[in-house]
């Protein structure tokens, strides 16, 4: 009899606890660190015994296809990773929960502990609307440079006040035929129409690609200047190869393989560069050079975020999870080298600097985080910008056709403008 009573009590206890238990679905886009994330979530579950988190990790290329299908069928996970490029679209469709009421009412959430400028980008409408996601990491673009190559020709390393003239002078010196066969073995610089190769130069020259309301493509004279300068590096100064000459080499491998001595791309490339270069040469990172119309340093940057679905049944618990995963619950090993935590105590920790590893200047990223951030994300961005599987289209395609000598500068940009505004007009009638 006593056994049955104990059993009964046990069942009642389990029943009561599971009644109060909330199961949250969390989806993220990096399967390579799934186990580490699971460990962090276990810690979260310990802190919140009434919340269980089910983690799903998916490759980025499948992630968005799957997420869009789930959004269409109203089955979005409670909490999920959100790309800055899609915030406008998802917020405008009413798929994301506005987070302002939590931010304002939760005394344990300290917005000042984050890089505050990131929160401009997660608002919709941009900069003034409600906050739709919390940044957990951010990236920017930097100038990668090969220190050994600089030393060989007796050049000083790039510094904060480097301008286009300094850059060009170095690029000319660094473009070298090393084995004397009449072909260039080491280019001074490497770039093509890719967004992360082009836009930092435009912003460092005080230019912009879109109208101030971000609804039409209308590059300012400063932006056109930057584009002209870049394309001239290939066509006139011949210090960078045309894109077609590097066909067959992954774009992110050109610099680490020593085929070019300078390169501007996203800070997340630190990881790949580190892996490929190994100890074969010394390299560093610096600010993107300033253009002649430069007024202040700005960076091309955007955060990776975490958002709550508008259809979640447990917004309070989801907020707890978002807060935890936006930084306070994470450790540096959950961030790929070159992705900076948006949570400053984590970013400004000694571990982030990874002393003893290349590049020695990793702390530069933290300085850059204080600067104004620019980007050109809009609805239909990959379509007009020409990104990923659509890299042949839009602005990317137009710049590549100039570099490859298939179209003149004005001709290519006029055609691109017409196409881009057609795309944008579809999204912003």
């Amino acid at each position, binding site marked *: 009899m006593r056994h049955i009573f104990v059993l009964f009590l046990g069942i009642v206890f389990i029943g009561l606890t599971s009644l109060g238990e909330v199961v949250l679905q969390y989806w993220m886009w990096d399967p390579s660190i799934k186990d580490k994330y699971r460990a962090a979530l276990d810690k979260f579950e310990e802190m919140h015994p009434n919340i269980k988190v089910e983690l799903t990790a998916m490759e980025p290329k499948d992630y968005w296809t799957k997420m869009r299908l789930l959004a269409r069928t109203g089955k979005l996970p409670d909490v999920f990773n959100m790309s800055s490029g899609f915030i406008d679209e998802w917020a405008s469709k009413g798929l994301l929960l506005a987070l302002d009421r939590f931010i304002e009412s939760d005394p344990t959430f300290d917005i000042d502990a984050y890089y505050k400028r990131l929160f401009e980008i997660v608002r919709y409408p941009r900069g003034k609307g409600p906050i739709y996601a919390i940044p957990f990491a951010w990236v920017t673009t930097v100038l990668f440079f090969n220190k050994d190559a600089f030393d060989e020709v007796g050049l000083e390393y790039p510094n904060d006040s480097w301008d286009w003239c300094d850059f060009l002078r170095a690029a000319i010196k660094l473009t070298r035929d090393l084995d004397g066969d009449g072909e260039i073995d080491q280019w001074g610089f490497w770039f093509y129409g890719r967004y992360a190769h082009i836009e930092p130069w435009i912003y460092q020259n005080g230019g912009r690609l879109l109208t101030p309301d971000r609804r039409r493509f209308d590059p300012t004279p400063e932006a056109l200047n930057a584009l002209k300068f870049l394309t001239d590096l290939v066509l006139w100064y011949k210090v960078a190869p045309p894109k077609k000459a590097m*066909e067959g080499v992954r774009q992110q491998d050109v610099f680490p393989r020593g085929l070019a001595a300078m390169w501007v791309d996203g800070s997340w490339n630190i990881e790949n560069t580190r892996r490929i270069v190994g100890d074969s040469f010394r390299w560093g990172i610096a600010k993107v050079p300033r253009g002649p119309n430069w007024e202040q340093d700005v960076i091309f940057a955007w955060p990776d975020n975490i958002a709550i679905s508008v259809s979640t049944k447990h917004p309070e618990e989801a907020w707890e999870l978002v807060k935890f995963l936006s930084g306070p619950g994470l450790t540096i090993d959950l961030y790929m080298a070159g992705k900076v935590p948006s949570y400053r105590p984590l970013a400004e920790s000694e571990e982030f600097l990874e002393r003893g590893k290349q590049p020695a200047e990793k702390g530069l990223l933290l300085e850059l985080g204080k600067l104004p951030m620019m980007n050109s994300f809009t609805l239909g961005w*990959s379509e007009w910008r020409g990104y990923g599987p*659509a890299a*042949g*289209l839009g602005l990317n395609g137009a710049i*590549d056709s100039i570099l490859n000598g298939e179209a003149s500068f004005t001709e290519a940009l006029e055609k691109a403008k017409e196409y881009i505004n057609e795309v944008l007009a579809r999204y912003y009638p």
Partner: protein
Amino acid sequence: MIFAVIYVPGALSVGLTLALLLNAKLKGIGFFRALFFSPLVTSSVAIGIVWSWILSPRFGVVNYMLKLFGIEGPSWLGDPSTALASVATVFVWKEAGFYMVVYLAGLQDIPVTLYEAAEIDGASRWQRFWRITFPLLTPTTFFALTIAMIRMLQHFDIIYAMTRGGPGMASTTLPYAIYLNAFVFYRMGYASAMAFMFMLLVGCLTFLNFLSKRYWVKYQY
């Protein structure tokens, strides 16, 4: 269009040539048959990566060989004039093994007695091919052609792996454009309409093929 013009005749003729070469009763012929068939069962992405490297302007094997003869090769995949043709050629290489197997089956079906009779009549190898082999293979060719005309429109993966539709729009073919609109731009309605037209196109081509059958396919020995 360029893709179809290269792929259909290319795959059929390479397949037939391989089949004729591998129809001999030699030791180890099974190995060669498997070898030529293997690209078909290899993933398109792997093939795309390896061929991108082979066709690379500076570090590729193809341009290196050309250079030995003093020819400066183009950037095969980076030049709009050669990109689509290069991808189509790689696709022929990948798929020829399938047509080879189809033709091998067809070849083995031709009675040896016909060749013996022809030999007695003094027919040359060339005559035997054009008068016996080729006509008796027409049912096989009909099948292979129908499949090839459908396959020529199903080359999305190889484009994705090699050129991603570029440079510019040079290799953005109909299936790739459907993919872009559906899964990159998320214009599902537009992509569905394209896919529907695409289905009609495949249907029409197959129908025409069947209509033309009676004029050139010979079933009787």
